């Protein structure tokens, strides 16, 4: 059986790191904070690996089906006997897998940051934030209650906000952190409403109960939720769609993706941890967590998820081909790959062979975490070396940074789907799942995989080949970065190369039963060929410095320009918020506030002043005048009592 203390310690160790570094970091353990945080997360990672081993190979399987365990559940807020917000730990295949991913990538980033942020003034603060993030992400993964997941969801959002805005003296970083927070918060509004709808109809907040009640068609809860409709869709559909809206915001799905590229203003290791490997897959995880509800009760929403994922995947891939900031290319690549995971879930069914998409999505999540974290950390090393994010300042770095070059190449090959690396296996499964379920999405995915190979190798050739490296200004005393920066790259490269050999189908599937994953050479031929073509085109264009990219860009004209400007989606948002919302709603509200609300208050005040101006003359200081008023008053009162009152 699962050991509740071991599992609870996995999130609590980074939390302890957060408290220690956050409270004492500035004064007492300034230089020691990084080592402390790393040591604690190392403990978490070991516990997570142990838990994974224990779960998958010792106690998890009962009669060939992986069970869900809830080793710890504490009632935190009890509303009624039935309805309460619990704090619990859930152990099932996906949460265990996420534990491993989060702790491993977080450990790599902790180690890497020791070198990357050396000498940074707010070093301890940085490690405190990393600890907070890791704690919240692990709490999110382990949540047994939909409200608990929401709490940690917001905590993750806050730590992401803090880390994007880590260089708070840089206006662009501040703007990016605000943008990320507002956009995801806006999506979370939908999530919260979705939670309320689902829990209102199911009468519980607990995942297990909620799924059980909403998926069985005979249950009263499911009937009630399906029966009450709003705007042509059942309440259940609305609830599921709104929950997905939260997931789409966090996972940067089109059209809520605009915050992710800007989030690259944060320190690069943070981008690797939060905006590539862990936090942005929270949306995928959420959909996977509630997958039975989506798959069995609201297939329409699941189809929408598939399309949102597919559109995000291809839009992001097209944009990634045109960006020149290497971190932005990686950001769009992340969005594209998460789109893959989303539509893999979207095309999946619950249970059996048809549940391949679910397994594929989780598999891709796992391999993507490895190679994307590696890409970001490699990009970080490059940025550390050349002090620029722009491709034009790079080129010819393969001799200067051999380790980075080699690991980066592995990651690029992996994400491009070159056979025998991890990305190949997970991507093939996704394509296979899409092929069997939704042909349109399959073709979109196929095109995207070609584009992926192209833009990744565009990045690779531009950084490491193209033109000979010339030092730009300043100092060049330091080399590639010390062991602390190289070690995570090497470890992640091993992961990126070898993660594909994990028999994922046997471990993670929608219903817990082992899934036979089979590879068909004939089926793999198309995506692999497309990928190789993408690589070849990139090599043709970018291997040596030449005029081809410019010519290509000018011949594509409008399309290139639109993609370069990210299809003007940012501008569209700005138009909607600034022109439409601020002008129409904001101005009207401001007018109402200034004229009606303020006007009423001013009216009261002015009336008082006017009346006072009128009657103050009565206080003239003339005693005899007062006496006359008094006398007149007495006479009037006397007359009143004598003639009227009786």
């Amino acid at each position, binding site marked *: 059986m699962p050991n509740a203390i071991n599992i609870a310690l996995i999130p609590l160790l980074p939390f302890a790191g957060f408290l220690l570094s956050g409270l004492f970091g500035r004064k007492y353990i300034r230089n020691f904070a990084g080592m402390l945080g790393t040591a604690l997360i190392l403990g978490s990672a070991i516990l997570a690996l142990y838990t994974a081993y224990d779960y998958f190979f010792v106690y998890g399987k009962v009669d060939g089906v992986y069970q869900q365990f809830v080793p710890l559940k504490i009632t935190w807020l009890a509303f009624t006997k039935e309805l309460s917000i619990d704090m619990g730990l859930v152990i099932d295949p996906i949460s265990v897998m996420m534990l491993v991913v989060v702790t491993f990538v977080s450990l790599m980033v902790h180690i890497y940051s020791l070198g990357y942020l050396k000498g940074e003034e707010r070093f301890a603060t940085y490690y405190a934030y990393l600890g907070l993030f890791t704690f919240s992400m692990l709490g999110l993964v382990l949540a047994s209650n939909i409200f608990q997941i929401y709490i940690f969801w917001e905590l993750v959002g806050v730590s992401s906000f803090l880390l994007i805005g880590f260089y708070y003296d840089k206006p662009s970083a501040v703007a990016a952190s605000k943008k990320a927070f507002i956009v995801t918060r806006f999506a979370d509004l939908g999530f919260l409403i979705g939670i309320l709808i689902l829990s209102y109809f199911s009468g519980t907040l607990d995942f297990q109960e909620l799924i059980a009640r909403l998926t069985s068609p005979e249950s009263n809860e499911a009937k009630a939720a399906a029966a009450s409709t709003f705007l042509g869709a059942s309440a259940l559909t609305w609830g599921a769609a709104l929950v997905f809206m939260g997931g789409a915001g966090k996972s940067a799905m089109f059209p809520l993706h605009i915050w992710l590229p800007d989030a690259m203003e944060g320190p690069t290791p943070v981008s690797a941890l939060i905006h590539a490997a862990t936090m942005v897959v929270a949306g995928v995880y959420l959909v996977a967590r509630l997958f039975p509800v989506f798959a069995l009760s609201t297939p329409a929403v699941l189809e929408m998820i598939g399309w949102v994922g597919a559109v995000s995947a291809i839009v992001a891939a097209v944009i990634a081909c045109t960006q020149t900031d290497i971190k932005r290319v990686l950001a769009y690549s992340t969005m594209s790959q998460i789109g893959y995971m989303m539509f893999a879930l979207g095309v999946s069914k619950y249970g059996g062979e048809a549940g391949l998409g679910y397994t594929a999505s989780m598999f891709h999540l796992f391999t993507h975490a490895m190679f994307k974290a590696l890409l970001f950390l490699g990009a970080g090393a490059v940025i550390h070396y050349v002090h620029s994010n722009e491709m034009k300042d790079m080129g010819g770095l393969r001799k200067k940074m051999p380790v980075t070059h080699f690991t980066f190449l592995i990651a690029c090959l992996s994400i491009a789907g070159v056979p025998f690396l991890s990305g190949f296996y997970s991507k093939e499964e996704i394509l296979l799942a899409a092929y069997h379920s939704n042909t349109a999405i399959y073709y979109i995915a196929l095109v995207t995989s070609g584009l992926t190979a192209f833009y990744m190798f565009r990045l690779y050739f531009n950084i490491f080949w193209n033109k000979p490296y010339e030092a730009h200004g300043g100092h060049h005393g330091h080399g590639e970065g010390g062991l602390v920066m190289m070690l995570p790259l090497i470890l992640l490269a091993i992961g990126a190369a070898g993660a594909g050999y994990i028999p994922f189908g046997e471990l993670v599937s929608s219903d817990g039963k082992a899934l036979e994953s089979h590879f068909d050479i004939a089926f793999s031929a198309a995506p692999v060929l497309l990928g190789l073509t993408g690589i070849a085109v990139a090599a043709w264009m970018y291997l040596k410095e030449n005029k081809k990219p410019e010519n290509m860009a000018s011949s594509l004209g409008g399309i290139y320009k639109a993609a370069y400007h990210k299809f003007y989606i940012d501008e569209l948002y700005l138009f909607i918020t600034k022109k439409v919302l601020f002008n129409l709603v904001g101005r009207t509200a401001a007018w109402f506030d200034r004229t009606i609300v303020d006007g009423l208050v001013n009216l009261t005040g002015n009336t008082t002043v006017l009346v006072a101006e009128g009657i103050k*003359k009565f206080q003239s*200081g*003339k005693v005899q005048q007062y006496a006359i008023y008094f006398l007149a008053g007495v006479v009037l009162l006397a007359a009143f009592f004598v003639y009227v009152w009786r």
Partner: protein
Amino acid sequence: MMEPGLYHILTVSIALFFIGVMGFLTRRNLITMLMSLELILNSVNLNFIAFNKYVWPGKMDGLFFTIFIIAIAAAEAAVAIAIIINLYRSNQSIDVTNAEDLKY
């Protein structure tokens, strides 16, 4: 000769009251105004005594009220004189039209 009745006394009292009111409202000298005030109070005293004697001869209430009013009038005269003296010290005048500082 006729014994004076209630109405005779009330007539005197009313005359006294309005003489007092007239003096209070028209005179500018504070001392004279104070004297007019005393006239008003005495007209009230006269009323109390008359009603007590002619309407409820067996009771003492009117007498008590009268004695109270005389006592209060004495105290009030002392306070008023003190105020008037102080006013004279600051204004060099006891004309009521010169004492109009306390206004809006």
